[in-house]
């Protein structure tokens, strides 16, 4: 046992000495910050309420039409600056002066279909932004016209919170932070094993009174320890950012189990293929397949993790146990595989 612990220490020392783990942490930080930057950018298109784009976009809209037109109120309710104009010429002049960014010309509401005109600046980026801001008031106005024409629009009065940030946080960021360490753990095991094999240091090691099982086991254990350390760090950081994580312990256990599954599978790959080139290739493909496949099943680790973290009523330790059993099965396969490899 003490020999085995010495082996684990040897692995951990190598990881620390090479400082490569720092790169892995930089990658994770980058992915997290980068994808939230992407999210905020895309949110301003899809879910503008949640990032307050209206407050930031300071464009005046010229309005030509009845002074008590319901669209004026709808636009103002969204924080848009509306300037009424008596005639099109006045509005056009104001646009040329740069006083307003776009114009809306509203005909009387009696017409069978109401044909409204919107004049936007020719610059692509600008006109896309203005149109996005106008979309919501226009949609509401469309519903007003529908009601006038005797169509009752259901679910029009639901008042919730913009959900995208919540969905993204628990179904993308948290799983990414909890499972990327598992991916790193697998890579560590593949590299560490194939390096020993290719540089012929494995034989030297086997000359000492340790078994192949112990060596592989130590490498897996070290990789899992590194993964757990990362997960604990991320969970702590999330907590410090006031992001609530329910079932803290179960979330960490699930992340550890997944790291174990990936590490065991990667050890198996390295033992079968022996060189880094093929092992890394097959391992990367395996991760790709695993990640995609997990979406297909209801027992997906991502889904389970998400549900644990938001405190889902129907998700418990039992769901985590399923993964623990899978890890156990994988472990047995690996032990049998090593026995065969050792005999060969």
């Amino acid at each position, binding site marked *: 046992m003490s020999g085995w612990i010495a082996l684990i220490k040897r692995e951990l020392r190598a990881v620390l000495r090479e400082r*490569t783990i720092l*790169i892995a942490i*930089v*990658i994770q930080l*980058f*992915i997290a910050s*980068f994808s939230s*930057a*992407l999210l905020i*950018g*895309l949110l301003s*298109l899809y879910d503008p309420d949640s990032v307050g784009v209206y407050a930031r976009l300071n464009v005046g809209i010229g309005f030509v039409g009845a002074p008590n037109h319901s669209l004026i109120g709808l636009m103002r309710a969204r924080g848009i600056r509306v300037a009424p104009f008596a005639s*099109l010429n006045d509005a*056009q*002049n104001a*646009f*040329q002066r*740069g006083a307003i960014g776009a*114009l809306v010309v509203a005909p009387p509401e009696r017409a069978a*279909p109401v*044909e*409204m*005109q*919107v*004049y936007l600046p*020719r610059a692509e*980026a600008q006109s*896309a*932004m203005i*149109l996005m801001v106008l979309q919501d008031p226009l*949609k509401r106005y*469309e519903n007003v016209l*529908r009601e006038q024409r*005797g169509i009752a629009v259901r*679910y029009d009065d*639901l*008042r*919730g*919170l913009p959900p995208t940030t919540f*969905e993204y946080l628990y*179904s993308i960021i948290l799983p990414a932070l909890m499972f990327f360490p598992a991916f790193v753990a697998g*890579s560590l095991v593949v*590299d560490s094993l194939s*390096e020993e094999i*290719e540089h012929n240091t494995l034989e030297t090691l086997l000359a000492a009174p340790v078994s192949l099982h112990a060596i592989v086991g130590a490498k897996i254990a070290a990789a899992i320890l590194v993964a757990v350390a990362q997960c604990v760090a991320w969970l702590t950081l999330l907590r410090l950012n006031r992001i609530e994580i329910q079932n803290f312990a179960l979330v960490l256990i699930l992340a550890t189990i997944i790291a174990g599954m990936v590490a065991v599978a990667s050890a198996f790959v390295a033992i079968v293929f022996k060189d*880094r*080139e093929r092992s*890394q290739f*097959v391992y990367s493909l395996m991760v*790709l*397949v695993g990640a*995609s*496949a997990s*979406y*297909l099943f209801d027992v997906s680790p991502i889904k389970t993790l*998400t549900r644990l973290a*938001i405190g*889902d*009523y*129907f998700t418990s330790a039992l769901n985590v146990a399923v993964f623990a059993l899978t890890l156990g099965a994988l472990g047995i396969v690996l032990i049998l595989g090593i026995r065969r490899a050792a005999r060969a």
Partner: protein
Amino acid sequence: MKQILTIALREITRLRRRFSGGASPLTVVILLGALALNAYAFRDLAVLGSGLYRIGVSGDAPALQDARFAPLAVEVARGRALVDRYALDAHIDGDDVYARRDDKSLYALGALKKYLEKQELARIRSTFEMARAFPLRVEINFLDPAPNPGSPAPAEPPIAPTTTAAPASDAALTAQLKKIEDEGRLPEFRIDHTTDKEIIIPSLMTPPAPFAQVIVAFLYIMPMTFISIFFTSSFMDEKINRRLTLLLSAPITPLQIIIGKMLPYAIFAVIATAGIAFSTRAPIPLALAIFAPTALFIFAIYLMVPLFYRTFKDTTFISMLATTLTTAYLIFPAMFTGINDLAYMSPLTLAVKMYRGETFGLREYLFPAAPMVLIFGISLYAGTRLLNEEFLMGYRPITRKLADAIFLLLDQSRPYLSVALMSFLVIPIVYVAQLILLAIGTNLPMSFMLAGALIAAATIEEIAKSMGIAALIEARVVTSTRQVLALAFLSALGFLVGEKLLLLVSVTLVSETMLSAALFNTGFVLVPLIAHFIFTSIVGVLNARFRLRYPFAVIVAVIAHALYNLVIAGGLR
């Protein structure tokens, strides 16, 4: 040429040997499985928040066919009780939606609202006649702003309420409805400048987020990145088996070795690109033109990995970092196609345009392509200088290796010319690095972004200009302060010439943002030249005369540079 082909054949043999025997069928099976599963997983992109909300359903509520909702059929009373007991997030009974007032329930309600709105629209569409169901049509027109404030407006046709009769907008509505039925989703509103007018229906439009096209465009990048594992391994193999000395003693140049090893992968990249273009019905020559610079860029990065690695773990993590950064650099801007002109910094944007059937000009093509090809050229040159046993075999800290590499890149017999050229040639790398910063920075709060981006940009520039000088100082090729100042001047000059050349290509595309003005240093020629000279001199003199360690010397220069940038940015405001 013959030597290159020989090396290429040798590389193919190496790969064949690697993947012959028992491993190959397994690999192929896994590969095919991976592709099939990925295609399936990405078939519809509704993976965000799968199974996040538990919704109770009774009565004739619309079916919840969205992966985010996990519906549960219950009686009304029990459903509401479950909501109150925090087991369900909301309960729908026909027109009635029951929820709690806490965040989790309100998020579910927010998601439900968006989903039900769409269902409701479908119901209205199928129940009522078109004129009543869609009573509002909006005609989009475009206006040119006044060319010069003060000058009289050009004789533009006066804007008058066009008398388009209902049939015109009816036709547009029918076309949009048909598109929804054909594609199963809402049409994106696209600002199309080729036609002057466009009719949109507010409830039928979605923002122009090019998710699907970006994913398709990314399909081109995946095989290139994957194949790079082998390209990198090829050099690692030579190193492990210590055959490089042998290879280099043959009448063959390092350039021939690199090109020869790259050739099979380049051919693979061409075939893969053509194949993907063919199967997604895109024009093959255009796809090749768009992705050739990207392929070269990816090869450039993966050529550097084996030159700098010390252990296997190094290789894995350096590759991972390279992949993450390039992926971000390629995908992020393309997501904003048609919304922000900075999107053109990524070649994927051109691919998105291609798939949308939109056109782009030579300038839009060169904006992403030119820096990538230039980086490839630099990487190739660096590869030829660094491909020697002594550099490859040393196990030293990564910073030490970088310093050695910079020294090897310089021609020691002509230090002045080398330093000026180096500062000139690193421009594309500096530029790409700054574009990445800009892309990320535009999404942060304004004041925070400005400060962060200015400091980061200054750091990149100062390192780029002074690294060659520092390497020469360390190797004692230059010793006197006068020499250092002369080098600093030449470095500043080379950098400025490169910067200005770059500006010629990019200024019209990115000049819109105030920040880019500060980053790319628009303004007079003399002021930036003096500024560059001063900052680089600070690093050189502190390092050579006062023996201040290089990182600290750079920090001092960066502070000066950031302050200068702040003044420039302030002046532009």
